[in-house]
C-alpha cells in the first residue's frame, strides 16, 4: 500500500523509470565507464543485461572491475559515463523506493556486535515496505536456533549467513550477492547454495559475484566474465566454453614404439615426453576420434587412458583472463 503510493508520489524520475515490466530487463548497462583519479580505468565501456528472474554470476580476477560494477548498480558509486538502469531506476539517484526493492549482501559490512540475530533482522528490515518475518528469515538461512545469540558470538560462517539474512529480509526483487559463500565450510556452502537456488525459484533476480567456479556452475543461469573493465565472455556455464573454440580435450598414452607422426591426430597435438601423453584440443571430438579409433583398431593397439574431457569453467576462465586485453 505504502509502496504503491510512493511510486506515484516520487517526482522527477525519467520516463524510463517505474516498476519494471515483465519484458524489461532487471539490469541494463551500456558503455559503462569509471576511472579512479583519472588513472585507473576500472570500467572501460562495459555492456550488460540481466533478465528478470535470472541468476547471473559475474566472474573476474581481482581488479577486473567487478566490485566497481556492482557498487554502481547498487547506487554506492556513480559512473563517469554510460547508461545504467536497475529495475527501471537510475541507481545513482539512490531513491528510497529503489533501495526498497533491492537487497545487498556485501563483504565486510559492519553490524552492531551487541545486537541479537533476531533484533538485527527486525531492525534492518524495518524500513522496507513489506519485510519478511524475522523468524522465517533466520530459519531460511539456517540460523533458526540462533535468534537470541548476539552478533559478536557468531562464527565467521554464521555471520555471513546473517549478512545474507539481512539482504533478503526486506523481500527484495533484486539481490546483489558479493562472494556470498567465501569462508564457508562445505556444508554451509551447500546450504547457502540451496537457499540461493530457492530464492531464484521464487522469481528473484540475483546478481552474484564469486571466485568459485563450481558456485557459478552450480547456481548460475548465465556467467559473465569481466577483465580489464569489460565483458570478455558470457554464456551459460555449459556453453561458455564454445566461445573459446575449444570444446574438448582428447588425451591418451602414445603406445610404445609408435611415433607421433604415425598417429592420425590433428596438427598441433601435444606430446608430453615423459609419460608419452598425447593430447589435442578440438571443437569436433567425434570427427577427430573416428580415424584415430580406426587406426588403433586396425593395429589392435589399446589407447591407454583415453579421455575426452570438456574444459571446466575454471579452465576457460583461466584461459580467458590470462589473455592480454
Amino acid at each position, binding site marked *: 500500500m505504502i509502496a504503491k503510493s*510512493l511510486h506515484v508520489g516520487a517526482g522527477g524520475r525519467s520516463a524510463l523509470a517505474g516498476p519494471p515490466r515483465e519484458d524489461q530487463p532487471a539490469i541494463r548497462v551500456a558503455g559503462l565507464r569509471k576511472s579512479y583519479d583519472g588513472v585507473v580505468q576500472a570500467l572501460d565501456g562495459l555492456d550488460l543485461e540481466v533478465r528478470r528472474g535470472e541468476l547471473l554470476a559475474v566472474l573476474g580476477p581481482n581488479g577486473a572491475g567487478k566490485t566497481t560494477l556492482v557498487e554502481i548498480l547498487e547506487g554506492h558509486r556513480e559512473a563517469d559515463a554510460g547508461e545504467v538502469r536497475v529495475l527501471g531506476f537510475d541507481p545513482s539517484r539512490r531513491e528510497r523506493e529503489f533501495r526498497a526493492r533491492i537487497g*545487498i549482501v556485501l563483504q565486510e559490512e*559492519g553490524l*552492531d556486535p551487541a545486537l541479537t540475530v533476531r533484533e538485527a533482522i527486525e531492525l534492518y*528490515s524495518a524500513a522496507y515496505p513489506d519485510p519478511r518475518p524475522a523468524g522465517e528469515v533466520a530459519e531460511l538461512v539456517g540460523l533458526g536456533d540462533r535468534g537470541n545469540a548476539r552478533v559478536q558470538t557468531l562464527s565467521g560462517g554464521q555471520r555471513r549467513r546473517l549478512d545474507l539474512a539481512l539482504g533478503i529480509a526486506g523481500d527484495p526483487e533484486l539481490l546483489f550477492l558479493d562472494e556470498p559463500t567465501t569462508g564457508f565450510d562445505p556444508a554451509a556452502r551447500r546450504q547457502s547454495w540451496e537457499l540461493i537456488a530457492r530464492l531464484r525459484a521464487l522469481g528473484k533476480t540475483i546478481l552474484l559475484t564469486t571466485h568459485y567456479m563450481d558456485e557459478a556452475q552450480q547456481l548460475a543461469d548465465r556467467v559473465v566474465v569481466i577483465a580489464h573493465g569489460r565483458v570478455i565472455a558470457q554464456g551459460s556455464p555449459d556453453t561458455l566454453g564454445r566461445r573459446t573454440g575449444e570444446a574438448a580435450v582428447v588425451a591418451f598414452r602414445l603406445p610404445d614404439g609408435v611415433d607421433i607422426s604415425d598417429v592420425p591426430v590433428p596438427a598441433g597435438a601435444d606430446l608430453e615426453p615423459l609419460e608419452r601423453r598425447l593430447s589435442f584440443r578440438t571443437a569436433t571430438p567425434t570427427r577427430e576420434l573416428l580415424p584415430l579409433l580406426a587406426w588403433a583398431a586396425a593395429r589392435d593397439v589399446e589407447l591407454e587412458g583415453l579421455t575426452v574431457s570438456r574444459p571446466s569453467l575454471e579452465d576457460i576462465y583461466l584461459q580467458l583472463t590470462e589473455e592480454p586485453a
Partner: protein
Amino acid sequence: MILRARSDLSLLGRWVAARVRLTLRNPRALMFTFVFPLILMAVFNGLNSGGTVAAMGDAGGKVAFAQFYTPSIGIFGLASACYTGVVLGIASARDTGLLKRVRGTPLPLPIYLGAWVIGAALTGIVAVVLLFVVAVPAFGVHVYGRMLPAAVVTLALGAATLAALGLAVASLVRTAEQAVPVAQLTFLPLSFISGVFFPLEGAPDWVVHVAHTFPLFHIVNAFDACFAPQTAGGGWSVHDLAGIALWGAIGLAVAARRLHAEPDPHDRRPLRAWALR
C-alpha cells in the same frame, strides 16, 4: 506522504529504542556515562562534606560542595554520553562499514543519525537523573522546585548541543582511530576549565575567557545555577542558554553541511563520500 511521515516516525522510534538498548549493552558507555560519574560524585561529595565552594551561576556567593559538584558531574556524564559517545560511535560505524550497510537499505541516513543523537541525549539525561537519585538522599542535595523547569530545559538543550557537536566532529574525523584522541582532547581540557571538577574561582582571566568561548562552560554554569539557593527567580540563565543554542546551531550547520541530508535528490555526493569514506 502523511503515511510515510508516520511510518518514518515509528522507524525513528524503533532505532532510538535500539540505540538505547545497545548503549546499555556497551560496557565502556555504561562505565563512562553511569558508573564513573557516580563514583566521582560519591567520592568527592564524601571527602568534602560540610565544605562550601564558590557558586557557579551569576548570583555569586558560596554553596555547599554537593550543590556544586553533583550538577557539575552530571554535565560530565551528559557530555560523555552525548559528545564522546556520538563521536566515537559514529566514527566507528563508518569505519566498520555499518553506514554503508544502512545506505544499502531504504532507511534514510538522517533517521539513522537522528536515532544516534536522540538515543545519546536520552541516555545522558537518565545518567544525570540517576546521579541526583543517589545524591539527594546520600549527600542532602537540594532540588529547588522553582528552578526545576530551567534545569530541565538547560539539560535538554545541553544534550542536543553536545550531540550536534558530536555529530559535527564525527563527520570531520577521518577514522575511528583518530576519533578517540580528538574526542578526548576536545572534551577533557574543556571540562577542567569549564567548572566541571572545580569552580573557576581564582583562575587567571584568560582561562576564564577561553572557557566562556566554549559551550561546556555555559551548560555547567546554567545548570549549576539551578542548584544554588541564592539564584533568583526561576533560575533561567538567558545568556548561557543563548550561548549553548548558538553552539548547537554551529554543530548542526557543520554536520548538515558535511552530511548533507537528503533534500536535494541531485546532489548527495558529500553524504555519499562521507558515509563510504
